């Protein structure tokens, strides 16, 4: 028997296996670390929470938004970003605004009738919210939030918040 010849063949074969394993690990690690962290889902969720805190204080409608007689104030709508301490400017890197926020108010007894609406930011990508965000990662990430709030007169409102974050180039 030629044991030395057999060992040589085995070591060449083993070396070949090691190269394949190392190459596989290299490719997987590169694929993993070259993919940036996608934080848009959390970012959109924080945006919704922040808007909710601004609209409703401990379950009561913000008195700056609605009068004691139940009339929504246009001034709040016009200065929504300032009123809610938001800044949708994403720096020089972006030519377009990368955020969008929309708040719809419905009376509890008439859940289909929109009584007031506020929207700010770039609404061009709003239609993309209906698409599967897992499949279309390069599009926007949307977050929807819904809660109840009561005004000074005791009227209950359903508040629906839609928040959108794009920033695809930095997250995908």
């Amino acid at each position: 028997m030629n044991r030395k010849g057999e060992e040589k063949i085995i070591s060449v074969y083993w070396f070949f296996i090691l190269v394949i394993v190392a190459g596989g690990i290299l490719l997987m690690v590169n694929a993993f670390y070259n993919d940036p962290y996608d934080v848009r889902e959390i970012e959109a969720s924080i945006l919704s929470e922040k808007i909710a805190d601004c609209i409703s204080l401990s379950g009561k409608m913000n008195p700056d938004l609605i009068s004691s007689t139940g009339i929504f104030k246009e001034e709040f709508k016009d200065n929504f970003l300032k009123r809610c301490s938001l800044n949708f400017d994403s720096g020089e890197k972006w030519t377009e605004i990368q955020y969008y926020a929309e708040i719809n108010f419905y009376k509890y007894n008439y859940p289909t009738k929109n009584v007031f609406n506020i929207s700010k930011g770039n609404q061009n990508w709003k239609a993309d919210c209906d698409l599967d965000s897992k499949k279309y990662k390069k599009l926007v990430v949307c977050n929807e939030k819904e809660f109840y709030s009561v005004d000074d007169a005791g009227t209950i409102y359903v508040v629906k918040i839609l928040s959108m974050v794009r920033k695809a180039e930095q997250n995908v």
Partner: protein
Amino acid sequence: MNLAFVVIIVLFLLKQGSGASVLENSYSKQIALTLDSAKPGMIIKLNLIDLKEVSDKNKINFNDVVKIENNLVKVKLTEKGGQTYSFFNNVSVKCYPDNEFYIFTISEGA
């Protein structure tokens, strides 16, 4: 040879995980998200020892690692690198290092 192979692979994986660009990317976003949730009057203390280790290795002054300009967070761990991420919370933020920590003081925005 097998042992050497395993050691090389483990060292490679560790080096990849603590790479400057990976840390810049993740920390700039984490800091931006932290600032998004912050409220005026808060003082936030973040342990950034991972960044300090890499910046020391790359001879970057730890004072220059994290910068806040308007509503942009910039994390820089190499001379030519750096990652920027914006936050939407309209607050004024000042930050400074304290050993391996960074202190962020939040006040009302303009």
